[in-house]
């Protein structure tokens, strides 16, 4: 039986095309129910007697859903109790069309055996296919198709069929056709055994909801937005809420030369946009343009209705002479990018109330209003919430509860939050990935040794941080007869184990990088590889990819060779151990000689690098000492840097550069490289200004100039000044990025920070996927491995780079957040006075850095009640109080403690100790170090 589906569409060129698709109907599609003996089916999915007690429908029944239910109430469908659901093909196709994430979720459910979800291909069944009728909209046709399939099932099976729909019209029509139909909330309410499901109901309210005056302007319909964008009246961009001020946001405009960042201020102009959304904005007239306020605003706990106008006035008042930025307002939403958010419930004032506010962990997300009856149990728990809608008359977006993670402050919970918030894939490796692993015990085969260079006779050793189990690099160095030096960098040959296109390869490409948290490592590849087979452990034969240089005594490269090899490391050293060996004059064995040679060459290399303009930047890094029993941090230290750190680093840089040159020569179009763009001069303005306030000139014309002026910038009375300046300079930098060489002109390849023309990542394939790709490219270029189509496809590499860049950024953020979490745990039992330095001066706060803990925080100058004793000098960014002046870089002493006033929401609080301001600063609790001693002994 053949039908044809006919529709007209407009092509990009503007012509109209009539498309005809053949559509075949069949009479052998089975119904999928175990009770049916008419259909010739194998392995029916729907259970014989579905057990789901519903007050509305007491007999056993199957559920048929409407498209809207799948789109919006996925959290309900995912609950294990909901079983025996028939998902119609009509529904599935509509969902795929409307929302990719929802489609993926429903597809996932369909694969779970225990859920008994069955896809019925009603569009191809001869009895359930419906043709669109004149005057019928596509939606109406689909609804009719759903009803048709439902009634077919009803006639076909003895079991009752329940149609669940949120579409009132559809429900009415279904009732008229003699079907059983309920809305989702009716049905879920009737499930007497599982009352907790009610919380997961998505709150859908149309814009027409009654009651409450509209608090926001209406969003324009999509068609109008598109027209507006075409005509240039509106601009499209991604919405980025400010971290510090909830009434402010930036929109980075796509494809406009004139304005790349547009400021949005005030809740009216923000108009319900949520961080991450793609929005359409309209520029305000130039007279209304504004500048970002230096105010730090957070949504306070008890915010009254009238509160906001006041705050908005604060924003408006005092428009100074600071150059104004293009300012606009949101007129419509092009695409919502809502995800699930972690956070906590805000304690409700009324105990029995079911309406609650949810406070997300991410500061850039608004509070969300949810309905739950389990508020009591959820108190003190981290929970996940999903936004459903944001009607015009609601101050907050409406959402629903998804699941609870665990108690607030519990480390496992907090780690989970951290990983979820940064979108780090952290589920255990699937069976298909694990089945790609080589069988144990693993040995190097004949085949391997034939094709590899045997370097087991060399005195190779590895140098890593203490406790490192994924050793991916090892080094050696020896004098040659002609006076030159042979240096080798040996990198774990991960690409030998991870073959392109396998499940393990896909998983690694998705994860992109290993994520290091303080007390946990989320591996990119399974542990067997990362900590054993690929890890260059000492006294074990391992496969490696080696870069062998011949260097002159002045550390100039004479020759370079790449080869796959077999090595056997003599020793796995820590930085400290290696340093000891170098310093120990009595040791003259091969390893000591090798290390000394490497160290000498590394110093030469570093000098060359710095001469060509490489920057030495700083960011505060800390190490936690973790209590072995409670796993709580007991001490914090800044990381120490030794010569050996920089020794390893120099050779890794050298290897990366040599490899980058080689793969770019061989694959000019598809080499995976890493670049670090030069920041635009405007990025440096804040630090130039800050340095000027201390009477220093910074020259930022080139990397070299910057490096020199940073070296010269010293203040006698502030030894930490130089480091701070470097920390601030780091923040002016652009992100370093992976890219595909065919996508950019060669001039853009350069790495600004390292002052090199070309760069890539080659040396850590165990923990970075980019290195795996680079390994493959290099292996192909030296003829050691075969190529495969995706490797040389520019577009594929480009897409991969995009994912890797995203994962790396997220991994970095997650790492930082983990440090933050541990800092907070550390201060749980402590109140300490510490030395700090002012990084920024805000209108109502000081941004302070405490070097000892690498901790940054705000010292708020105003309270809810109190006025600031300081006056703010915007011109020079100085806070004055009497004769005390606080500006950038100034030394302060602050008291660090945990604010426990809110049990659910503990946060780190900084209070000013010195300079003393009567009535504002808190009394000193003794000299910092002495205090700490006391705390430790107690």
């Amino acid at each position, binding site marked *: 039986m053949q039908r044809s589906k006919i529709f007209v*569409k407009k092509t990009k060129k503007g*012509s109209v095309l*009539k498309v005809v698709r053949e559509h075949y109907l069949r009479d052998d599609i089975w119904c999928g129910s175990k009770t049916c003996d008419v259909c010739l089916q194998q392995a029916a999915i729907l259970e014989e007697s579905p057990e789901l007690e519903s007050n509305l429908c007491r007999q056993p029944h199957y559920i048929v859903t409407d498209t809207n239910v799948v789109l919006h109430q996925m959290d309900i469908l995912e609950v294990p109790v909901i079983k025996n659901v028939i998902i119609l093909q009509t529904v599935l196709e509509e969902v795929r069309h409307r929302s990719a994430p929802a489609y993926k979720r429903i597809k996932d459910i369909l694969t779970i055996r225990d859920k008994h979800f069955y896809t019925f291909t009603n569009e191809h069944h001869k009895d359930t296919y419906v043709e669109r009728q004149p005057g*019928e909209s596509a939606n109406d046709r689909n609804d009719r198709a759903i009803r048709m399939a439902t009634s077919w099932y009803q006639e076909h099976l003895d079991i009752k069929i329940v149609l669940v729909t949120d579409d009132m019209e559809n429900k009415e029509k279904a009732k008229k056709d003699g079907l059983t139909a309920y809305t989702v909330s009716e049905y879920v309410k009737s499930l007497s055994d599982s009352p907790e499901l009610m919380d997961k109901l998505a709150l859908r309210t149309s814009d027409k909801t009654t009651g409450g005056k509209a608090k926001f302007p209406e969003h324009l319909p999509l068609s109008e937005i598109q027209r507006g964008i075409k*005509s240039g009246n509106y601009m499209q961009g991604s919405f980025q809420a400010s971290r510090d001020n909830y009434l402010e946001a930036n929109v980075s405009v796509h494809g406009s030369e004139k304005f790349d960042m547009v400021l949005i201020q005030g809740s009216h102009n923000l108009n319900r946009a949520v961080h991450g959304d793609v929005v359409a904005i309209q520029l305000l007239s130039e007279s209304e343009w504004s500048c970002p306020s230096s105010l730090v605003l957070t949504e306070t706990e008890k915010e009254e209705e009238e509160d906001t106008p006041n705050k908005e006035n604060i924003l408006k008042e005092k428009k100074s002479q600071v150059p104004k930025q293009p300012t606009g307002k949101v007129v419509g939403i092009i695409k919502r990018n809502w995800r699930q958010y972690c956070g906590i419930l805000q304690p409700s004032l009324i105990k029995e109330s079911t309406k609650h506010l949810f406070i997300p962990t991410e500061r850039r997300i608004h509070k969300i209003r949810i309905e739950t009856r389990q508020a009591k149990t959820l108190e003190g728990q981290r929970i996940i919430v999903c936004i459903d809608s944001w009607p015009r008359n609601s101050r907050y977006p409406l959402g629903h509860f998804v699941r609870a993670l665990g108690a607030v402050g519990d480390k496992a919970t907090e780690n989970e939050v951290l990983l979820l918030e940064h979108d780090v894939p952290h589920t255990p490796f699937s069976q298909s990935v694990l089945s790609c692993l080589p069988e144990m015990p693993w040995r190097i085969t004949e085949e391997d040794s034939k094709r590899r260079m045997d370097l087991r006779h060399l005195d190779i050793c590895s140098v890593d941080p203490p406790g490192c189990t994924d050793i991916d690099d090892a080094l050696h160095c020896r004098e040659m007869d002609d006076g030159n030096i042979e240096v080798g960098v040996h990198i774990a040959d991960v690409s030998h184990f991870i073959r392109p296109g396998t499940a393990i390869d896909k998983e690694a490409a998705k994860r992109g990088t290993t994520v290091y948290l303080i007390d946990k490592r989320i591996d990119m590849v399974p542990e067997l590889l990362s900590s054993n087979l690929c890890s260059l452990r000492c006294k074990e034969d391992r496969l490696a990819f080696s870069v062998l240089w011949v260097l002159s005594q002045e550390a100039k490269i004479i020759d370079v060779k790449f080869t796959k090899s077999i090595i056997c490391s003599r020793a796995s050293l820590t930085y400290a151990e290696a340093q000891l060996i170098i310093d120990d004059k009595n040791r003259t064995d091969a390893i000591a000689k090798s290390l000394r040679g490497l160290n000498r060459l590394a110093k030469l290399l570093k000098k060359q690098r710095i001469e060509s303009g490489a920057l030495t930047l700083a960011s505060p890094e800390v190490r936690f000492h973790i209590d072995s029993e409670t796993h709580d941090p007991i001490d914090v230290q800044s990381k120490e840097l030794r010569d050996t750190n920089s020794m390893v680093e120099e050779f890794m840089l050298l290897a990366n550069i040599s490899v980058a040159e080689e793969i770019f020569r061989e694959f000019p179009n598809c080499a995976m490289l890493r670049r670090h763009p030069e920041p635009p001069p405007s990025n440096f303005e804040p630090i130039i200004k800050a340095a000027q306030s201390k009477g220093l000139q910074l020259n930022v014309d080139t990397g070299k100039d910057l490096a020199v002026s940073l070296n010269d910038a010293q203040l006698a009375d502030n030894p930490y000044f130089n480091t701070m300046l470097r920390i601030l300079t780091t923040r002016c930098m652009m992100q370093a990025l992976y890219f595909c060489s065919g996508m950019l002109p060669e001039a853009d390849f350069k790495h600004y920070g390292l002052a090199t023309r070309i760069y890539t990542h080659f040396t850590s394939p165990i923990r970075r996927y980019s290195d795996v790709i680079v390994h493959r490219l290099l292996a192909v270029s030296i003829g050691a491995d075969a190529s495969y189509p995706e490797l040389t496809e520019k577009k594929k590499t480009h897409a991969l780079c995009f994912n890797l860049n995203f994962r790396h950024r997220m991994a970095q953020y997650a790492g930082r957040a983990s440090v933050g979490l541990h800092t907070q745990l550390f201060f749980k039992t402590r109140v300490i006075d510490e030395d700090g330095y002012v990084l920024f001066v805000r209108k109502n706060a000081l941004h302070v850095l405490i070097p000892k803990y690498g901790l940054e925080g705000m010292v708020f100058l105003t309270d809810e009640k109190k006025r600031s004793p300081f006056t703010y000098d915007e011109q020079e960014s100085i806070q004055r109080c009497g004769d005390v002046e606080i500006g950038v870089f100034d030394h302060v002493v602050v008291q660090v403690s945990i604010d426990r006033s809110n049990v659910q929401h503990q946060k780190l609080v900084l209070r000013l100790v010195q300079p003393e301001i009567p009535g504002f600063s808190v009394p000193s609790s003794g000299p910092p170090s002495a205090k700490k001693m006391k705390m430790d002994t107690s």
Partner: protein
Amino acid sequence: MAEVLLSEAERTFIVHGIQDNIRADGRSCEDYRHMELETDVVSNTSGSARIRLANTDILVGVKAELAIPASDRPDEGRIEFFVDCSANATPKFEGRGGEEFATEISNILSRAYDNQGSLNLKDLCVIPKQQCWVLYVDVMVLECGGNVFDVVSFAVKAALHNTRIPNITVHADDNGRTELELSDDPYDCKRVDVHKTPSIVTVSKIGHFHVVDASMEEEACCLARLMLGITEQSTVTAIKKEGSGSLDPESIYDMMETGKRVGQAVNATLYQKLQEEEKLGPNKRKAGFLG
């Protein structure tokens, strides 16, 4: 066209029969043969029709496309004809053999349709000077069995009647630029009014008399014929004389009169049949090409 070889006796028989208003197959001089008509036979066209008359088999497809209006007629759409003589029709069409004949057909179709009265081309304009619909009429001669011109014109008319042009809404933004929006309902479309479109009636002079719808044998006896584009309202929109023989003015007048009379009736019948077919709706039995 296919060669028909006639003996002198056959020829005389035909001519004499026509004198007595009775033709070899029993028709009178102004009768058409039996025709089979089906519309909507090619689903990916905007409109299509197929007509079979004796051994002549014609398939017509209409395709509506957006284009820029001609500069001398900024507020009108266009109709363009293209005829393809398939080599299946007759071995003579092989290679470029059918080209001349094809051009001949498309020329007379263009001429017959090229007037204000028959098609309202203003209806096909979307935005004056910017966008209009162009109807590309593609004629396929599948089999040649005599009287091709007439059958082609009937099939064109039927295909135009079957044509559905999607409705378009025009939005203008503030800068005067326009945007076209297509309705997503496939049933939301407009029709072409074929009430006044012409059909071609070929009147063949045989002996001292003339006939319409000449059979292959009759065509072999005919030295001169007149092709008339005639509407249901009896308006003559095109006229063309063909053949080696000459016609005197009086007989031209007579032939035109016959043409008008027959043309009016044929148009009316065709229109009526098209309406009847449409009433059957989407559930009609389709013959297609296998029936």
